[in-house]
C-alpha cells in the first residue's frame, strides 16, 4: 500500500512540475508565438541556481565542485532560481527576439541550449560538470522529520500549491491587456505593431515570464530529486514539454494541464518504470522518444488545436461602452452573428 501511494505521489509531483513547464512554454509559444526550442535549459538554470543557493559551501576533498554554496533557506533559493532563469531568458531574448524570421529565433534558442549544455557539462567548477549536483537539501525535511513516503506527500502538497499559484498567474496574464497584446502579436506581429503595441517589449516580457515559470519548475525538480546532472535535461526533455503543450492544446492553460497529464505523466514518467529489455538497455527510452515525436506530428495533422482547443475571442465580446454591442448589432446585423 505504502509503495503504491509513494509511486502515485511521485507521479503527482512530476505532473505538477510539468504543468508549470507547460504554463511557461504556453506563455511563450501559446500566447505570444515565440518558438523556444530550449525550454529545459531554463529549468536547469533555475534548478542549479536554487541548488547552489541552498547547499552549504563545497567540501574540500569531496570531489564535488560548485560555485556559491550559500546555505540559504528554501524560499530564498526558490526566488534565486526563478530570477536566474528569468535573467537567462532576458539575455537570450536580446539576441533572439529582434525582428527576424521565426526560423532564426528557433535556431538561436536551440544553439544557445546546446552551448549552455556544453559549458555546464565541461566547466567542472560551475555545477560539478557532467556529474551534476547531489544532496541538495529538501524544503523543511530537516524540521518535519517525516518518513520518505510522508515527505513525498508533503512535497506533493507544496508542489500543488506552487502549481496552483502559477496557473492563477498564467490565467490572469491571459485575460490582462498584456495577454491580449501577446495574442495579437502571435496572430500578426506587423498589425500589432501598426496598432502601436511595443512588440519587442511584449515579446521579451513573455519570454522572461515563461522562463521564470520554467525556472520555478526546475527548482521543484532539484528539490524533489535532490540532484541534477546534464543527462537529465537533454533536447528530448524540451520536446516532452512541447509535446505536452501541442497535444493538450496550445494557448490554453487547461490544455497545458491535460497535455502534461497525457504526455509527461502517462507516457513519459510512467513508462520509466518498465523493465529494460535484456541486451537493449536504452531501447525503451528510444521507443518512448519516437512515440512522443510521432504523437506531436499526428496531433498537428489530425487535431492541430490540441485536445482542449483554445477558445477564440468573439468579435463583439468586449463592448467598448455600455450599449455598444446592441448598437453594433442593430447597425451591422450580419457581423454580430458571424463574429465567431
Amino acid at each position, binding site marked *: 500500500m505504502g509503495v503504491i501511494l509513494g509511486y502515485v505521489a511521485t507521479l503527482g509531483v512530476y505532473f505538477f512540475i510539468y504543468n508549470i513547464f507547460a504554463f511557461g512554454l504556453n506563455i511563450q509559444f501559446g500566447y505570444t508565438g515565440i518558438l523556444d526550442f530550449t525550454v529545459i535549459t531554463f529549468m536547469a538554470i533555475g534548478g542549479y541556481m536554487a541548488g547552489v543557493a541552498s547547499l552549504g559551501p563545497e567540501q574540500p576533498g569531496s570531489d564535488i565542485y560548485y560555485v556559491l554554496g550559500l546555505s540559504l533557506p528554501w524560499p530564498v533559493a526558490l526566488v534565486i532560481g526563478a530570477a536566474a532563469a528569468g535573467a537567462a531568458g532576458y539575455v537570450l531574448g536580446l539576441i533572439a527576439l529582434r525582428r527576424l524570421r521565426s526560423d532564426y529565433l528557433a535556431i538561436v534558442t536551440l544553439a544557445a541550449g546546446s552551448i549552455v549544455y556544453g559549458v555546464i557539462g565541461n566547466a567542472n567548477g560551475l555545477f560539478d560538470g557532467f556529474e551534476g549536483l547531489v544532496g541538495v537539501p529538501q524544503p523543511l525535511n530537516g524540521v518535519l522529520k517525516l518518513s520518505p513516503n510522508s515527505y513525498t506527500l508533503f512535497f506533493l502538497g507544496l508542489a500543488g500549491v506552487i502549481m496552483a499559484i502559477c496557473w492563477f498567474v498564467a490565467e490572469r496574464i491571459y485575460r490582462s491587456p498584456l495577454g491580449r497584446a501577446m495574442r495579437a502579436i502571435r496572430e500578426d506581429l506587423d498589425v500589432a505593431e501598426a496598432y502601436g503595441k511595443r512588440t519587442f517589449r511584449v515579446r521579451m516580457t513573455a519570454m522572461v515570464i515563461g522562463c521564470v515559470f520554467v525556472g520555478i519548475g526546475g527548482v521543484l525538480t532539484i528539490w524533489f530529486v535532490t540532484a541534477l546532472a546534464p543527462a537529465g535535461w537533454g533536447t528530448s526533455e524540451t520536446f516532452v514539454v512541447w509535446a505536452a503543450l501541442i497535444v493538450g492544446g496550445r494557448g490554453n492553460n487547461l490544455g497545458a494541464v491535460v497535455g502534461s497529464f497525457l504526455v509527461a505523466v502517462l507516457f513519459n514518467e510512467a513508462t520509466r518504470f518498465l523493465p529494460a529489455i535484456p541486451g537493449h538497455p536504452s531501447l525503451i527510452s528510444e521507443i518512448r522518444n519516437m512515440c512522443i515525436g510521432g504523437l506531436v*506530428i499526428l496531433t498537428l495533422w489530425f487535431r492541430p488545436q490540441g485536445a482542449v482547443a483554445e477558445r477564440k475571442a468573439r468579435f463583439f465580446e468586449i463592448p467598448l461602452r455600455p450599449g455598444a454591442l446592441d448598437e453594433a448589432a442593430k447597425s451591422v446585423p450580419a457581423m454580430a452573428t458571424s463574429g465567431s
Partner: protein
Amino acid sequence: MSLFLLTLGFGIVTSAVLALAAVGLSLQFGVTNYVNFAYGAFLAFGMFFTYTAQSALHMPIVLAGVFGTLATGVVALVVDTLILEPFVRRGTSGFFLLIVTFGLSLILLNLVQAIWGVGFDQYNVAAGSPITLGPFSFTAAQIGVVAVAVLTMVAVHLLLTRTTLGRAMRAMSDNAPLARATGIDTRSVTRWTWFISGCLAGLGGITLALNTVEFQAFTGNTFLFVIFAAVILGGIGQIYGAMIGAVIIGLVVNFAGMVISSAYDLDAAFAVLVLVLLLRPQGIIPTLGKA
C-alpha cells in the same frame, strides 16, 4: 608558426565537411523556405549506412560512401514525401513545420540509435603515414574529405547553372508561386531538392565521421548548429554564401580551439552566429525579403 599552419590545415578540413552539410541545408531551406531541424539526423543516417555497408557488406570505403550518400538521399525523399509534403500542401504555416521537423529529428535520431546502438563506432580506414603538402600535414582520409568537398561544390555549381533542374530550383528559391505560374513542376523540383539535400547531408555525415574518427548517433546533431551558423552567415538559401560561411566558420572553430580550448571550440561558432544576427542578419549574400 607550425601550430598556426597545422590549425589552418585542420580548419580547411573542417570547412570542407561544413561546406558539404551547409550547402545541402541551404539548398532545401532556399527552395522550400523552412528550416529542417531533422538535418542532424540525416547526417547520422549517412554515417551509419556507410558504416554498415563497410563492416557488414564488406564494401570498400569509397563504394560504401556512395551507398551511404544515396541511401540518405532516399531517406530525405521519403521523409519529405510522406510527412512534410502533406503538411505543406495543406498550407500549414512555417511555424508548425518547424515543430514537425523538430519532432522528426527526435524520431529519426532515436531510430538511428535504436538500430545502431549507443556506443561509438569508427570506419575501418587505414591511418597510414601523414602526407605532407607544402607546409601542411594531412592524413589520407583528410585529403579525401577535402577532395570530395571541392568536387561536390563544383558539381553543385554546375547543377544550379547548367541544368534545367538547377534553374528551376533557383527560380523556386526566388519566388515559388511565380515559378509554379511559369509552368515549373514545383512538386517534383521539391522532391529532387530533398533528395539532393539528403545526399549532401549524408556526405557531410560521412566526412564528419572520417574527420572525428569516432562517431555515434548524436554526433551529427551536435554539429547541427555549427551548420546553421554557416548557413545564416552566408545568407538564407544562398548556396555560394553557404560555401563562404562554411570556410569562415570552419577556420574560426579550429583557431578558437587552438587559442581557448578544444572543449569550447563549437562555442566560437555560436559567438559568430550571435554576431551575425546582431550585425548583419541578412548574411553575407542577402536574399531580398528573407531576413
